[in-house]
């Protein structure tokens, strides 16, 4: 009986997850965008509602404009219904503008470009919220909840009625959305457009108009959901925005197709978390790990791998293609010249520039794992930093507890990361595209919660202090006093590892392996027909990519000197995917651009960073603008521009 009770107690959590997941699904069905910013949008709208209720002010979400305008006289505070209605209007406006300016231009872009744009939107919304709230931040008082919370008895357990009201609302919205999509002309047209945009156009429907309307509805759902769930879950810019992870998992379990299944999946995740809490406290023998957060996601990865392809692909007019992957040429020249420039920088530049250079090299190394797996093979993985974390903590464990010396410890640690990458990669090779991205996002979260938070691995109270690397008596550590930090010797070690990896990756790309990779990337069926073992090719790429990420993690560990699990969160992977994409995800140069613009990299050293809310908003805006203007990345844009100039010059010469 107690097990059933805990399942019921999880209904509130499940309703929260389902409420957000429905909006995620609607956005995907409308425009093929998996919107990572959906919960962040809801969070911003919830603060809009609060500002209206508390001060009668409307927050303006546009950077550069005044933070808010007074809609009511200072002595008048709007009722919840008025504030809610105004917030919904704002939600509709934001939904329309975001679709029209950002995602509509990207409708024919590759899936990864849309992921990058939604990450830009995520950053923008976080930044603008921080900027608008200013120093009030979390201390901003919230108004009274809309839903009543008197307690009712449900099969022997007390449940505040707001959870049941929320559940009822979620059921109603699910039913309405299902009915809308099954019986209304608009819904049928949206479904038709999702199946075949060409067909919808021939029938007189505008896919853009349909998508815009659905974005408006999804934005309103996001705002309404977070306003209603805030009293249950709390409201905080960073934490609420991350509720997207369980919401994505629910949408994934629902196959990104069915509102009913998505709603049920959301409820199931909440109920599972509640039951795991019960089991964890009931049975002392269960290992002390964060099962509530990790286990449901792990199960989703397994289910998804067993069932294979989950997300239906949209029948868009033009299928987004990955950017062109140029064959690495003049490798010797580039490596020699690049090494010479970096070495001279390491021995001549001042401390902050050296630091920026080293950060850039380490990040570029991890970004190479993305170039290989996503750029060359077309597998969107969102777990490079989780694998880097495994590499980092394993290296420390091997060195401190097992006495494994440098350089064997980092190599073995990278091999452990490879093994984990394979454990996830082998089943994940059954899925592809955006569904693989979400599967790896779930896997990365599970790794973070179940492994990287494991006190045995992370050192518990004592923390993870990183031993200095030494080779033949030479100190290769980063630490030094004053302006001698970071030591150039560490920079040289990073350079050697980076350039060796570049040479290996470039040679693989130029050889038959690279051709197989590109064949799989462009058309798996055609590749298979031509004799390529698609599955083996993918697994091989997963292994090499995981090794590189793990190796990068060990360098990060040496660079940080003490480690914390915060460095390896899923959003670090998302941010790196975004910057690598901007640089050029299908070329080695893209990894170097990602390294250069990484937080703390050489661009930071050059221009500095205040790290204010405005900076996040500007970064998010820049990310969206660049991906809209150069959907194939900056380097591809520069190459295209250079070719155009050359053509023009040759025409006139």
């Amino acid at each position, binding site marked *: 009986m107690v097990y059933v009770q805990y399942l019921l*107690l999880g209904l509130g959590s499940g309703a929260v997850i389902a409420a957000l997941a429905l909006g995620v699904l609607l956005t995907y069905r409308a425009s093929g965008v998996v919107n990572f910013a959906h919960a962040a949008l809801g969070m911003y709208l919830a603060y809009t509602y609060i500002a209206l209720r508390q001060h009668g002010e409307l927050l303006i979400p546009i950077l550069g404009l005044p933070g808010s305008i007074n809609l009511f006289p200072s002595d008048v505070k709007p009722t919840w219904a008025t504030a809610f209605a105004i917030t919904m209007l704002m939600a509709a406006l934001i939904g329309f503008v975001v679709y029209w300016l950002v995602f509509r231009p990207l409708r024919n872009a590759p899936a990864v470009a849309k992921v990058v744009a939604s990450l830009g939107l995520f950053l923008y919304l976080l930044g603008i919220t921080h900027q608008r709230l200013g120093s009030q931040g979390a201390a901003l008082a919230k108004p009274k909840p809309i839903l009543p919370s008197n307690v009712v008895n449900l099969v022997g357990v007390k449940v505040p009625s707001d959870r049941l009201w929320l559940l009822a609302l979620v059921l109603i919205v699910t039913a309405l959305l299902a009915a809308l999509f099954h019986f209304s002309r608009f819904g049928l047209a949206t479904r038709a457009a999702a199946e075949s945009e060409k067909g919808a156009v021939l029938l007189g429907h505008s896919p853009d108009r349909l998508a815009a309307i659905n974005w408006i509805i999804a934005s309103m759902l996001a705002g309404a959901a977070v306003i209603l769930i805030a009293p249950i879950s709390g409201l905080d810019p960073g934490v609420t925005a991350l509720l997207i992870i369980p919401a994505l998992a629910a949408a994934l379990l629902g196959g990104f197709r069915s509102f009913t299944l998505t709603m049920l999946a959301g409820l199931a995740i909440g109920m599972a978390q509640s039951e795991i809490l019960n089991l964890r406290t009931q049975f002392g023998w269960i290992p002390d790990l964060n099962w509530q957060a990790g286990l449901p996601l792990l199960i989703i990865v397994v289910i998804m791998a067993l069932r294979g392809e989950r997300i239906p692909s949209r029948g868009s007019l033009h299928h987004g293609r990955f950017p062109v992957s140029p064959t690495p040429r003049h490798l010797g020249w580039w490596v020699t010249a690049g090494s010479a420039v970096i070495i001279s920088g390491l021995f001549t530049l001042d401390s902050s520039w050296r630091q920026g250079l080293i950060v850039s090299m380490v990040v570029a190394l991890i970004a190479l794992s993305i170039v290989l797996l996503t750029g060359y093979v077309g597998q969107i993985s969102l777990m490079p930093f989780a694998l880097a974390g495994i590499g980092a903590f394993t290296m420390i464990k091997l060195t401190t507890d097992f006495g494994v010396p440098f350089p064997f410890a980092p190599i073995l640690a990278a091999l452990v990361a490879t093994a984990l990458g394979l454990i996830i990669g082998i089943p994940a090779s059954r899925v592809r595209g955006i569904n693989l991205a979400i599967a790896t996002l779930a896997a990365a979260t599970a790794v973070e919660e179940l492994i990287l938070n494991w006190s045995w691995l992370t050192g518990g109270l004592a923390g993870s202090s990183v031993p200095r690397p030494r080779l033949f008596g030479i100190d290769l550590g980063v630490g030094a006093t004053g302006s001698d*930090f970071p030591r150039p010797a560490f920079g040289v070690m990073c350079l050697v590892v980076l350039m060796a990896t570049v040479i290996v990756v470039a040679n693989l790309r130029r050889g038959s392996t690279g051709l197989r990779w590109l064949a799989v990337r462009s058309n798996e069926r055609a590749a298979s027909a031509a004799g390529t073992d698609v599955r083996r090719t993918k697994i091989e790429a997963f292994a090499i990519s995981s090794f590189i990420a793990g190796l990068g993690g060990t360098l990060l560990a040496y660079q940080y000197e003490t480690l914390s699990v915060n460095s390896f969160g899923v959003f670090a992977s998302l941010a790196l995917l975004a910057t690598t994409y901007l640089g050029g995800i299908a070329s080695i140069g893209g990894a170097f651009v990602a390294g250069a613009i990484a937080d703390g990299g050489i661009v930071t050293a050059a221009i500095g960073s205040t790290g204010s809310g405005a900076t996040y908003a500007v970064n998010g805006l820049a990310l969206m603008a660049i991906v809209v203007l150069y959907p194939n990345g900056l380097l591809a844009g520069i190459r295209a521009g250079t070719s155009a100039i050359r053509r023009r010059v040759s025409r006139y010469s």
Partner: protein
Amino acid sequence: MKFINNELGGVDGRPIQFEPCISTFSVEKSQACAQELVQKGAVTVTGGIDISSNGSIPILEQNQVPMIGGVPVNNDEMISPISFQFSGGSPGAMVAFAHYAAETQGAKKVAVIYGDYPPIKLAAVDYGVAELNRLGVTDVTEIAYPILSTDFLPVLTRAQENHPDAIILSAADTACAPAMRTAKDLGITATMYLVGACAAPSIADEIGEAAVAGRIFNVEGPITVDHNVDAQIYGAAVAKYGDPSLPAASAGTVSFRNIMNIYSLMKDLGPNNISRQSLLGAVRAAVDRPSFNGHAYTCDGKQVPNLPALCAPQEILAIHENGTLRQLTDWIDVPAILNN
């Protein structure tokens, strides 16, 4: 800093230069901040809330730059030999809660709820639960919840099942309102202990008096302003130089304490004798040295076992009653409890 330089005349007429650097919760940026401050010749560093301080601490250690004061949320700030905190952080709060619950309240059954995040878990289990067990309270239910929790209902229902006399919650401030509201909805009568951040007036405004009444919080300074000169000075400084939108009870009180304590150390050393080494020596030699609007501090590394950086882990407990926060205890001597 403006208050010190303008109103107190700096260190014997020489103003203190303040160089802010925001870590943005990024290890790289935290590292870059530390290096930038080292390069600029900073004699000391004081911290805010920085969950990525593992980036800055090693650099400060290598350069023997003392980190004097902060809001210790990371293990690194609590164990580093160059870190000196005028606070007990979460471990200090958990020990005080456990001690008060067992000794004064006479609790026999306790539920300890904590966010599943290493520093929070460490405080709850290694200090809170350990102290309860040491005092003979063995009926302790430990309940971990994910930081990204969507509902406290299962957590508090589990806590309530054993009919505890006390519930201790070790959590980030985002959990305060939903946890207290859910406890009220469930009609939980056990005394609930929460970290000081949960005592913010805005939270009480949000969830209503009924949800806050009877809850016990830890505070790190006397809460009555009438006879408290330090609190009056702080109020005056905020009124003249502070951000008017900043709530009176916020991290600002901790930062002001940090700066004032650094100023006091510098003043004792004299303007010509201030260096990293002299500050390190002075702060390490501190025994029951007065702290601004807080408990006197002793930085002998022995106040809290295994957490040598916590110099003033003493706590005051306050209870929310009749719409206001009332001081419940005098200073609870956490070091004496732990070293007993």
